[in-house]
């Protein structure tokens, strides 16, 4: 690969005044009918020009916004110099999954929100550059396997192969411990695999990052449901693990509790996305698992998962895909970029709209309509968002064929149920010390959504890192 020429140096004023290069994307109406990735990513020249805009602040605030503590200024400088291999190495010090984080992290509220340039102009496109480095390393075949310390003879079980589990696995393996990751589903990746759709995170990227973990000696065992196939106690006592990290995610979907919710054609977002992404229903009948493909699909909820479901429905052939959300546009919890993409693709937003009943055909049991009421916003509630309240006599029906419920998840009960001495909160989340990620049970750590409830990929990864540091320390000192 030829070394690209670094861009000319610019003054601070020029840097601040220059906007970030746009990232090319598939045209909205074209991409809404295929599963290919939406943005194409920066090329080397664009990446170098953008990275060169970094002011190299003495006190880099961007790093404070990163849950895994990426050394952002160093990797930006290396990109600007055209030293992509060096940038990849810097990144991998703290984050083994840059191609994933570059795509799914909410950078606009983390590192980029704290970028000094953002006060006067557009903040450095840190996320896009992170993605660039991850992709460059993978595509150039220059992937370096991080060095692992000499084997310690210690063994760590990681339950769940989502972002928290994989991050923890990498850091524990580097310390020389043997790592086995248990996954309940047939393929590893957790929410990255079953939840986030192909058009937002191509599965080939997950496969590549998993290969790297395996090259580090991490073993991944699919189709093993801890809590059922083995319990935590059996792992610790019979299987001889020295520590266990529980990262099973938030795997028990909430339903609304409104009449008609068991009608045919009503899905949880988890089911709809799992059928489509993990089970391959978007390629039915080549894959055996089906998913309903109806003309009008309503997704209830306003988070990233709701956007993923609504955009997936379009790609499965829906003529109309609706988001039904009880608050307003400003209150949508989804990333602005996801909302923007969904709008561009033609997803209709029915805001300040609260579903009260699902109506179905009395003979067939199939969904026919969603009965909704209009809402208005009042004073801010505990979450800081304005509290919605119903407008009297405002009920109306939306005619449709599929309803997807995307209002979040409760923690999965399988491990708490079979681990009696593990403290869980009233909501069913595993209780841990926020710094060490230690649970109430000796040798057992936990992180990600099983501890937090529904959060983000990067917060789960942050938990995985902290847990790994704590596990490594525990295995060395033996102190709980």
């Amino acid at each position, binding site marked *: 690969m030829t070394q690209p020429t670094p861009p000319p140096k610019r003054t601070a004023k020029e840097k601040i005044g220059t906007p970030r290069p746009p990232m090319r994307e598939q045209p909205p109406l074209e991409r809404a009918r295929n599963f290919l990735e939406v943005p194409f990513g920066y090329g080397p020249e664009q990446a170098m020009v953008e990275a060169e805009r970094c002011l190299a602040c003495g006190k880099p605030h961007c790093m404070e916004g990163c849950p895994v503590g990426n050394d952002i200024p160093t990797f930006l400088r290396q990109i600007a110099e055209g030293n992509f291999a060096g940038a990849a190495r810097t990144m991998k010090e703290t984050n083994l999954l840059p191609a994933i984080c570059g795509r799914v992290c909410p950078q606009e509220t983390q590192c980029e929100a704290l970028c000094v340039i953002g006060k006067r102009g557009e903040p450095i496109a840190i996320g896009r550059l992170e993605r660039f480095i991850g992709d460059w390393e993978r595509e150039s075949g220059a992937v370096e396997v991080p060095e692992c310390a000499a084997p310690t003879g210690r063994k760590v079980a990681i339950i769940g192969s989502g972002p928290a589990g994989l991050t923890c696995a990498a850091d524990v393996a580097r310390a020389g411990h043997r790592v086995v990751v248990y996954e309940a589903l047939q393929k590893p990746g957790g929410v990255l695999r079953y939840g986030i759709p192909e058009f937002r995170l191509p599965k080939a990227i997950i496969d590549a990052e998993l290969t790297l973990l395996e090259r580090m000696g991490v073993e991944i065992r699919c*189709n093993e449901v801890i809590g059922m*196939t083995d319990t935590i106690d059996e792992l610790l006592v019979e299987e001889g693990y020295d520590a266990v990290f529980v990262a099973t995610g938030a795997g*028990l*979907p909430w339903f609304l509790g409104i009449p008609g919710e068991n009608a*045919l054609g009503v899905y949880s977002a988890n089911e709809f996305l799992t*059928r489509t992404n993990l089970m391959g229903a978007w390629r039915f009948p080549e894959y055996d698992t089906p998913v309903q493909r109806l003309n009008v699909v309503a997704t209830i909820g306003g988070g990233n998962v709701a956007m993923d479901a609504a955009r997936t429905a379009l790609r499965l052939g829906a003529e109309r895909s609706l988001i039904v959300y009880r608050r307003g546009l400003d209150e949508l919890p989804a990333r602005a970029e996801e909302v923007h993409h969904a709008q561009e693709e033609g997803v209709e937003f029915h805001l300040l709209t609260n579903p009260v009943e699902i109506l179905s055909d009395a003979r067939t049991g199939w969904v026919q309509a969603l009965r909704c009421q209009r809402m208005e916003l009042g004073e801010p509630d505990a979450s800081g968002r304005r509290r919605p309240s119903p407008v009297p006599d405002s009920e109306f029906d939306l005619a449709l064929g599929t309803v997807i419920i995307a209002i979040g998840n409760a923690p999965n009960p399988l491990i708490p149920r079979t681990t009696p001495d593990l403290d869980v909160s009233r909501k069913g989340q595993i209780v841990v010390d926020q710094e060490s990620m230690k649970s109430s049970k000796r040798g057992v750590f936990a992180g990600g959504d099983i501890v937090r409830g529904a959060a983000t990929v990067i917060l789960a990864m942050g938990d995985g890192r902290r847990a790994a540091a704590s596990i490594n320390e525990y295995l060395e000192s033996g102190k709980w």
Partner: protein
Amino acid sequence: MPRILRTELLAPRIRRYVVAAPKIARKRRAGQFVLVSPHPHGERIPLTISDADPDEGSITLIVQEAGKTTAEMALLEAGDELTDVVGPLGQPTHIVRLGHVVGVAGGIGIAPLYPILEAMQQAGNKVSVILGARSVEYLILEKEVRALGVDLTLCTDDGSRGRKGFVTEALGEMMASGQAIHQVVAIGPAIMMKFVCEVTRPQAIPTIVSLNPIMVDGTGMCGGCRVQVGNEAKFACVDGPEFDGHLVDFDLLMRRQAMYREQERQAMERFAAKDHTCQLEGV
């Protein structure tokens, strides 16, 4: 990948598979199930564990051809591998000494019922079994059930073996005979379980049913297997598969089981269009 150790045709389109799954064989308890997929593009289907041999490290599954996945499984033989065998899943049957327990099975329902009968008997219950099938050739596991030494009544729709008629009639007569029945465990097609529950409802005999809705992950993650039990929607995979039959909305269950009928038809047609006849047949 889990290997099939033995297969046996028990009745037309009903096969027994003995599958190597040492951990599951050790852990499983009566009433639990596994999710099985025969190949990487396959659908994962729930199958109740019918028996297990911890020494051999194997579990027994009894499968009736009903759709594409089970039709594909029918082509497998000893030595072939299944892609996924996950479990044991679900809550085990609550086994206690109650007195007189009556097991009622329709068709291959006897396969999941068998380990429950065994466990109920070991717990000190008197166990009676009413086993029904369309006709004598579809009656399976009769020998195994007899070997338990339980009181066995056979029914066939056409009278080709045992009494002519449905299991509900035999159960009604048993109730009318005045013998105490402390619990009924009914497993079979949803419609049969529904009618068994109607028979036991007037006398309020506790009736346990094992439900088989469509599942995806089997761990509570998707909620596709939800069933209405009284006022609550329950997930059959983690809350069940067994529930109080008097509270189950069977009509909803049957509708939800048929949710993908059109896709199932498409998949079967596509499958049937390929030539699956054995090259050795007729040689």
